[in-house]
């Protein structure tokens, strides 16, 4: 029994079958990659996991509880954090404030009327945020406006915002999309470090095979809205069905 269980999930957009009968089981403390060609339904599946979309059929359970019908903030409070394809951060706020908000969310829950406290006086929270920024090597940028960060730094900041909540499951939607090779390698190192330093489960959607094969312990290959195969990276590399559907001629 995995920490995340997806059973028979289907989703239609009008006449288009985006997902049909998806079964997926992500084991605790593993890195699970979901790969597949464009339009395979990877992002739709992710959106069903975080409450952005509600599947037409099937069930999604996380740590034994159903996530269906819950709002995104409730699902986050259960312990699922998500990194988006393009970094979603608070661009009008400073780097420090960006990390403080998830710290408050973790301590105070989804709403608290703390209108007469002062952010600077919340020493525990500030220390926590500073430690996180130090971990991702952004402490010197803490007073910068997040909008002025480089793309790589924005990605790192978003990752820090997710990690500071100490989620049980981290969902990554193409964490290296549009990155140069050097940045991609930095991201891989960062993710490896994260994985090594704490108990965490990761589900990664990724196009870059280099990233997938250096991180993943299990791989699910999706095509046309349904999982094709699920196996270890070594077996996936040589799987004929996968080569045909996804890796294609480019891999030869």
């Amino acid at each position: 029994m995995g920490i995340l269980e997806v059973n028979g999930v289907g989703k239609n957009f009008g006449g288009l079958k985006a997902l049909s009968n998806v079964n997926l089981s992500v084991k605790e403390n593993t890195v699970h990659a979901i790969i597949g060609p464009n339009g395979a339904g990877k992002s739709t599946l992710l959106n069903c996991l975080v409450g952005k979309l509600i599947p037409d059929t099937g069930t999604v359970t996380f740590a034994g509880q159903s996530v269906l019908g819950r709002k995104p903030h409730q699902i986050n409070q259960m312990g699922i954090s998500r990194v988006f394809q393009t970094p979603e951060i608070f661009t009008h706020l400073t780097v420090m404030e960006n990390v403080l908000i998830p710290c408050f969310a973790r301590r105070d829950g989804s709403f608290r009327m703390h209108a007469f406290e002062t952010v600077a006086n919340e020493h525990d929270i500030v220390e926590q945020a500073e430690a996180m920024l130090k971990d991702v090597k952004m402490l010197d940028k803490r007073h910068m406006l997040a909008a002025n960060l480089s793309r790589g730094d924005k990605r790192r900041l978003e990752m820090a915002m997710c990690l500071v909540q100490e989620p049980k499951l981290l969902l990554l939607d193409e964490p290296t999309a549009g990155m140069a090779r050097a940045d991609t390698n930095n991201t891989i190192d960062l993710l490896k470090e994260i994985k090594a330093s704490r108990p965490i489960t990761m589900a990664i959607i990724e196009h870059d095979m280099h990233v997938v094969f250096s991180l993943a312990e299990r791989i699910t290959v999706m095509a046309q809205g349904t999982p094709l195969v699920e196996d270890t990276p070594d077996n996936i590399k040589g799987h004929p069905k996968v080569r045909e559907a996804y890796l294609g001629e480019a891999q030869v």
Partner: protein
Amino acid sequence: MFGLDRKDTVFMLIVVVIALSAPILLNPWPAASQMAQFNAGYPDLMQRFVVYGIFAIGFNILFGLTGYLSFGHAAFLGVGSYAAVWMFKLLSMNIIPAILLSMVVAGLFALVIGYVSLRRSGIYFSILTLAFAQMSFNMAYSVLTPLTNGETGLQLALDDPRILDAANTTNSLPVTNLFGAEMRSSVTWNVGGWSFDFSVGYYVCAVIMLIAFYTSVRIFRSPFGMMLRAVKSNQQRLNYTGINSRPYTLAAFVISGMYAGLAGGLLAAMDPLAGAERMQWTASGEVVLMTILGGAGTLIGPFLGAGFIKYCENIFSKINDQILHQWFALLPDWLENTLVTVLHPFIGKGWHLTLGLIFMLVVVFLPGGLVEGWNRITGLFRRKPKAKPSATTEPAE
């Protein structure tokens, strides 16, 4: 001090000093001089500065922090005024219960309107609030006449019960007071050619404004305020960070509604009558103008904007052709007449044109409002000392 850091404390103290010495600062010209008409230091106008300042400070908590543009805030102002006048009619001429009730009623009203309107964001939210405010205005005008006295407006009457006050034996309407100190009483201080009015009404408003301003500074610096700014910046990320943005925006809406109710209550406390026109959409638009003109999202900006607009409204509108002729009397006749003709549309009843042009200029060249203008000016002076040391070190090298 008071939970503020050093910079905010200094800032707060400056505001306190300015607010308390406003009757002197706003009367820079001797009473008999030509320029006396630019003096703004009379109680009526100063009260309006401060009361609309409170209104704008509250509006800024919603619009400046969360970015939700409400076009119906005047409804809360009007509701506050009606509540206060009813308190004067039924309970007592003391302004404390009136002001408290106006805040409570406006807060409840904001809770209902906010609960419905905040289901949408952006333009739809603005339209919903506008619709609610217009509905309130029209109802105050027509169906709710028993409560609001329709077109005439709600006024005091001699035979009102006023259960807490002693029976009114005089044959004139009682006046609003704070434990006996009448709002309209004032002390005039004549020094040289100058004449300064210190009125009870103004100081009551000023102290309440300072409390309101202090509260807004605390909200800006609190985790709550940070969440509100996060709503404006990226609501999606906020939701995926485990924060439910709805109660935060609703709380901000209710708080700013209570500020508006407080302002409405104070208006009634200074002059105990309430009319439906206070709820009209032009009044809602005015507070939007004030906030943007001064600088949305800044602490002092909305207050500056409110002061600026109220100053224009009361001072520019008083200048007429005759005064212009006096100013240009020294010029040759043809030039004098041309200048007066050219300036005519901008003064007197045309003050809206002047205000409109200023607003356009501010929005185009200073999107951050008057506060941005101030920051740019101080920035110019700050850069100079930095440039000097480098200029002196260069020759040494």
